C-alpha cells in the first residue's frame, strides 16, 4: 500500500471506529490515536521523502495510480513533492491539535465523524495529482463544514454556515468549469496534472480558464472581494472547525491557485497575473485595516487571516522562486499561527462566554498560561524573528522585491506596510484583553488552560518556533520543489 493513501485511509478507519464507539472515553481514545497516527505518518513521510529525493529526481514521488472512471480518464492518482509534504505535515498537526481543542464537545460522536470526513477531504486534496480526484476531495472537505458550523456553532450559525457554503460552492462552480475546460483544452486524454503540464494549453483557452480557476480557488484563499464568508464563518464556527478551516482549508485555496491555475497555465498567469496582484495587494492592507477596528476576537483574527492569506496569493503572483517559497512558508506559518489563535480564543470564550474585547481585561492575571500563549501567537503574527511569521514574510518581501518594475516595487512596499498595521491590531487586542486591570469581576477565579488545551497550544507553539528558528529545512524542501514551475515560467 502506498504511504500516501494511508492519509485518507486512517481518517476513514477512524470514522468506522467512531461509529462503533459508545462512550466519550472510547471516542476520545479513537480520535487521539488516529490523529497521532496521522502525525507519525506525516513525520515518516517527510523522512522518506528526503531519502527518496536524494536518489530520484522525478517531479512527484511515491506516485501510484488507479483508473476508476476510464471513459473520462479519471483516475485516483497520488504523488507528492516537497510542497505537498509540507502541507500534509501542517494538516496533520492541525488535525491533531484540533482534537484536543474540542475535548468537551456536545454530541461528540457526530462531531468527530464530520471532523474526520473533513480530514479525509483535506488530506486527499494534498496527495492528489489527478484534477478530478483533487476536485472531489475539495468538495468532500467543504460539505462537512456546513454541518459543523450549522450544528455546533455559536451566534448566527445558520446564516454563517449557509453563507460560507454557498460562497465556497460558488467558487467550486467556477472551478468545475475550469477543470473541465483544462481537460478538453489539453486534448481530453488525461486528468493527471503532471501530464497536462507537459502538454500545451492554447493561450486563447488559458486566457479565460486561468481567471476562473484562480478565482475558484481564490475564494477559498480569501481573495478580495470574495472574502466575506471568512469573518462570519470563523466567528460562528466551533473552535476546532475554525482551526481546521483557517489553518488548513484556506491553504487549499492558495495551494490550488499555485498547483492548478499557475502551474498549468503559466502564460496566462504571466499575462493576467497583474489583475489578481492588485486584488491581493488590496487584500493585504484592507484586511489589516479592517482588523484594527473589530471588537470580536474572532473577527479580528478572521480579518487578519484575510491579510495574511492575501500575502500568500500576492507572493505566488510575484512568480519568482524566492517569493513563491515565501508564499508556501506563509501558508505553513499562517496555518499554525491562526490555529493557535483560534485554539486560544476558544479557550478564552469557553470560560468568559464573551469574545468582545471591550468586555475583557486583565486576563493575564487570571489565566497566565493562556495569556502568555496568546502573546506568543500575537508576536508570531506581527512577525517577530524566531517565530514563523518573520521568516515567511521576509522571504516574500525579499522575493517580491526581486521583480523589476515600479508596479511590482510599489505593491511590495504597500504589502510591507502591513507589518505596521498588524502590530497595531495585535497590540491593541493584547493590551485590551490581557493587560490592564481586570474588567469583569466574574472573571476572577476562572481556571487556566486544562491539560488537553495545553497539549494543543504547546504543540502549535513548538511548530511555530521550529519553523521560525530553523527555516532553512522548510525553505529548502519548498525551494527545490519549485523547479518545474520556475522552469516553465522562465521559458516565457
Amino acid at each position, binding site marked *: 500500500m502506498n504511504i500516501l493513501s494511508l492519509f485518507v485511509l486512517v481518517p476513514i478507519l477512524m470514522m468506522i471506529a467512531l461509529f462503533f464507539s459508545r462512550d466519550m472515553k472510547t471516542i476520545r481514545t479513537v480520535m487521539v490515536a488516529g490523529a497521532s497516527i496521522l502525525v507519525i505518518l506525516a513525520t515518516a513521510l517527510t523522512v522518506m521523502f528526503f531519502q527518496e529525493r536524494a536518489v530520484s529526481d522525478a517531479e512527484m514521488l511515491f506516485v501510484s495510480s488507479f483508473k476508476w472512471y476510464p471513459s473520462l480518464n479519471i483516475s485516483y492518482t497520488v504523488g507528492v513533492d516537497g510542497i505537498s509534504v509540507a502541507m500534509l505535515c501542517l494538516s496533520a498537526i492541525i488535525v491533531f491539535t484540533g482534537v484536543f481543542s474540542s475535548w468537551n464537545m456536545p454530541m461528540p460522536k457526530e462531531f468527530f465523524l464530520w471532523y474526520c470526513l473533513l480530514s479525509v477531504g483535506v488530506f486527499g486534496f494534498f496527495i492528489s495529482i489527478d484534477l478530478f480526484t483533487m476536485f472531489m476531495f475539495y468538495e468532500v472537505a467543504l460539505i462537512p463544514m456546513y454541518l459543523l458550523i450549522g450544528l455546533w456553532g455559536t451566534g448566527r450559525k445558520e446564516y454563517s454556515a449557509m453563507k460560507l457554503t454557498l460562497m465556497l460552492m460558488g467558487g467550486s462552480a467556477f472551478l468545475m468549469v475550469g477543470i473541465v475546460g483544462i481537460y478538453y483544452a489539453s486534448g481530453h486524454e488525461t486528468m493527471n496534472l503532471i501530464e497536462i503540464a507537459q502538454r500545451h494549453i492554447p493561450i486563447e483557452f488559458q486566457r479565460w480558464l486561468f481567471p476562473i480557476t484562480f478565482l475558484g480557488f481564490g475564494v477559498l484563499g480569501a481573495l478580495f472581494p470574495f472574502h466575506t464568508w471568512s469573518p462570519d464563518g470563523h466567528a460562528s464556527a466551533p473552535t476546532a472547525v475554525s482551526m481546521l478551516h483557517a489553518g488548513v482549508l484556506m491553504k487549499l485555496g492558495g495551494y490550488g491557485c499555485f498547483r492548478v491555475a499557475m502551474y498549468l497555465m503559466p502564460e496566462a498567469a504571466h499575462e493576467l497575473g497583474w489583475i489578481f496582484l492588485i486584488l491581493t495587494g488590496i487584500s493585504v492592507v484592507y484586511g489589516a485595516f479592517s482588523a484594527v*477596528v473589530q471588537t470580536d476576537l474572532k473577527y479580528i483574527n478572521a480579518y487578519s487571516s484575510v491579510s495574511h492569506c492575501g500575502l500568500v496569493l500576492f507572493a505566488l503572483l510575484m512568480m519568482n522562486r524566492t517569493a513563491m517559497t515565501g508564499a508556501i512558508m506563509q501558508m505553513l506559518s499562517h496555518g499554525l499561527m491562526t490555529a493557535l489563535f483560534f485554539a486560544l480564543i476558544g479557550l478564552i470564550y469557553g470560560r468568559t462566554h464573551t469574545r468582545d474585547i471591550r468586555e475583557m481585561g486583565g486576563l493575564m492575571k487570571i489565566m497566565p498560561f493562556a495569556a502568555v500563549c496568546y502573546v506568543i501567537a500575537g508576536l508570531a503574527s506581527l512577525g517577530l*524573528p524566531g517565530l514563523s511569521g518573520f521568516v515567511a514574510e521576509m522571504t516574500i518581501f525579499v522575493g517580491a522585491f526581486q521583480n523589476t518594475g515600479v508596479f511590482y516595487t510599489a505593491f511590495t512596499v504597500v504589502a510591507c506596510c502591513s507589518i*505596521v498595521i498588524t502590530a497595531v491590531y495585535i497590540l491593541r487586542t493584547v493590551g485590551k484583553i490581557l493587560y490592564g486591570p481586570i474588567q469583569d469581576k466574574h472573571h476572577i477565579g476562572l481556571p487556566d488552560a486544562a491539560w488537553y488545551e495545553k497539549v494543543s497550544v504547546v504543540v502549535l507553539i513548538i511548530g511555530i518556533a521550529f519553523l521560525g528558528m530553523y527555516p532553512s529545512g522548510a525553505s529548502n524542501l519548498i525551494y527545490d520543489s519549485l523547479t518545474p514551475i520556475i522552469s516553465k515560467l522562465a521559458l516565457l
Partner: protein
Amino acid sequence: MEYSILIIATPLLMFLFLGLLGGKMKPKVAGIIGTLGMTLCATVAYTVAYQYFFQIGKTGDTWTPAVPINFEWLRFTDHLHIDLGILLDPISVMMLVVITTVSLMVHLYSLGYMHGETGFQRYYALLSLFSFSMLGLVVATNIFQMYIFWELVGVSSYSLIGFYYTKPSAVSASKKAFIVTRFADLGFLVGILILSYYTGTFDFANLTQDNSALVVNSFAGKSFIGLSLATWALALIFMGGAGKSAMFPLHIWLPDAMEGPTPVSALIHAATMVVAGVFLVARLFPVYHFAAPEVLTMIAYVGTFTALFAAVIAITQTDIKRVLAFSTISQIAYMMVALGVSDFGGHDGLGYMASMFHLFTHAFFKALLFLGAGSVIHAVHSNEMHAMGGLHKYMKITSITFLVACLAIAGIPPFSGFYSKDEILAAAFHNHQAIFWTLWVVAGLTAFYMFRLYFCIFWNRPYSPHPLTPSPQGEGGHHHKPHESPWTMALPLIILGVFSIFSGLIPFADFVSSDNQPFHTHIDWTVASMSILVAIIGIGTAFVLYFKESRQPAVLAQKMGVLYRGALHKFYLDEVWMWVTQTVVFRYICKPIAWFDRHIIDGTMDGIAWTTQKASTSIRGLQSGQVQFYAWVFVAGTILIAALVLFL
C-alpha cells in the same frame, strides 16, 4: 575566538531557563541565577575585548575585523542569504563591553530595587532576553541579522516597558513604543530591500570594503523622484535608526517608555537600545559617506534640532525620569550630529570617533543617573521633583554618585563627559559653525537642567513627604524617613561612578576610528574652554535658582509664558500623534474600510442571495402542482408558438 559565542548563548539560555522554569523557583533564586549568568557573560565579553584589542585585533597598524562564527541561516536567492554570526571589530567589541557592564550593573541593582515585586522571575527572564538581543545586534555580521535582533530588542523593550501590565499607562506606553519604532522599522526594511536588491548582498564587509565601491557602483546613475536611489535607501535605513534612537519627530515614545521599571530605563532607554540607531549609522558609515553624503548632512541637521529641542523640554519637566529621558534624547542627538559632521579617514574622521566615544561615556553616566534616580524613587516613592528636596542628608552615596554623573554629563573636566563632548564640539566646529553654536548652547542647557535636577532632589528645601503623593507603604499617613538603598543598589552606583569619572581618560582614537587606523587627538583648548565656560554658566544659573528654595523659578516660568508652556507640554507633539493615529487612521481610514466591507462588499453578497431568494419565491407559484394550470399553460404556449410561426 569561538568562545565568543558564549556572550550570546548565555543570556539566551538564561532567558529560556528563567522563562520556562522561573515560575517554579523562589524569586530570589531566579534573580541570583540571572545575575550570575550575566556575570559570566560580562567576563567573557571582557576577555574577548582584551584579546581583541591587545592581542589579535591589529594587523600592522590597522584594526581588522574578526569573524569567529558565521553560518547561513536562511537562503533567499543565489546571492541573498541571511547569515548569523559574530563580527568583532573595534566598535562591536566596545559595545559588548558597554552592554555587558551596564546590564550586569542593572541585574545586580534590580535584586534590591525589584525586591518583592510580583513577576520578579519574569523580570529577570526578560532582562536576559534583552541582553541577548542587544548583544546579537551589535555583533551582527550583516544588515539582516541586525534587523532580526533589532526587532527582538524592540519586543524585549515592549515587554519591559509594560512590565507593570495592570497599569493602563504602562500598557499604552509599551504599545506606543512598539508601534512608533515599528513604523520606523518599516523604513529600515524597505531600505534594506533596496540596498540588497542593487548590491546583491547583506554583508557589512562587502558593503563597506574599498570605500563602499560596491554600493557606489551598483547605484551609479539610478535615481527616483530626483534623488539618487542610494540616498533613498540610506535615508530609509536611517529612519529605522531614528526610530530606535528617538530622533525628532519619532522621539515621542521614549519619554512614555519611562513607565517601565527604572533599572530597565537605565539599561534599555539610556545606555544600550536607544543608541542602536547611532550604532547602525556608524556601522554603515563608509556607505553613508561615499554613497550618500547628503544623508549624513541630513542626519547632522536632524540631530542638531533634536538636541536643542529635547534640551529645552528637559528644562521644564518635573518628573525626574522624564527629565532624564529628554536628556537622553538630547545626548543621543549629539552622537548623531557627530556622525553627521564627520569626514572619513584619519583625523578627518574625528566626528566618528567622537560619536562612539560619547556613546561609550554616556552609557555609564546616564545609566548611573537613572539608577540614582531609581534609588531616590525607591526612597520617596514618587517620581515628582516637588516630592523631593533635601535628600542629601539621608542618602549620601546616591547623592555623591549622582553629582559625579551630573558633572560628567555637564562636561566638567576631568569627568568622562568632558572628553567625549569636547571631541564632538571640535568636530562640529571644524565642519559647520551653526551646528557648533547650537550644540554649544545645548551644552549649557544640559548643565543647567541636570543641576536643576540635582539641586531639586538633594538640596533645595528640607525633606518633607509631599502631601499630594502619599507613600504607598505609609499607611494611615505615617511616613518613614528616606534612607540609603541596600548594598545591591549602592554598589552598582559606585562602580558606575568610577566608570563615569575615568572612562574619559581612555585614548579612544587609538581604538576606534572611521578607517580603522589609529590616530592622535589632542584637546582643542579653544573649543574646550568655551564648552567649560558654558557648562559653568549653566551650573551657576541652576545654583542660583534651585540650591535654596525660592520663588524665582516660578516667576521666570511666568515670564517665559508661551515658550514655557509649550516646552512643558512637549510642544504638543504627543497630541499631534494622538490626532493622527486616533482620528485620521482609526476614524477616517479603518472605520470606513470596515464599514465598506460589512455594508458594500458583504452587502453585495447578501444582496445576491436575497435577489435569488426573492426571484425564486416569486416564480415559485408557477410550480403549483395543479394539472389544470399546467395544461392551460401548455395549450397557451402551443397557440403562441403556432401564432408566431404562422405570422413571422
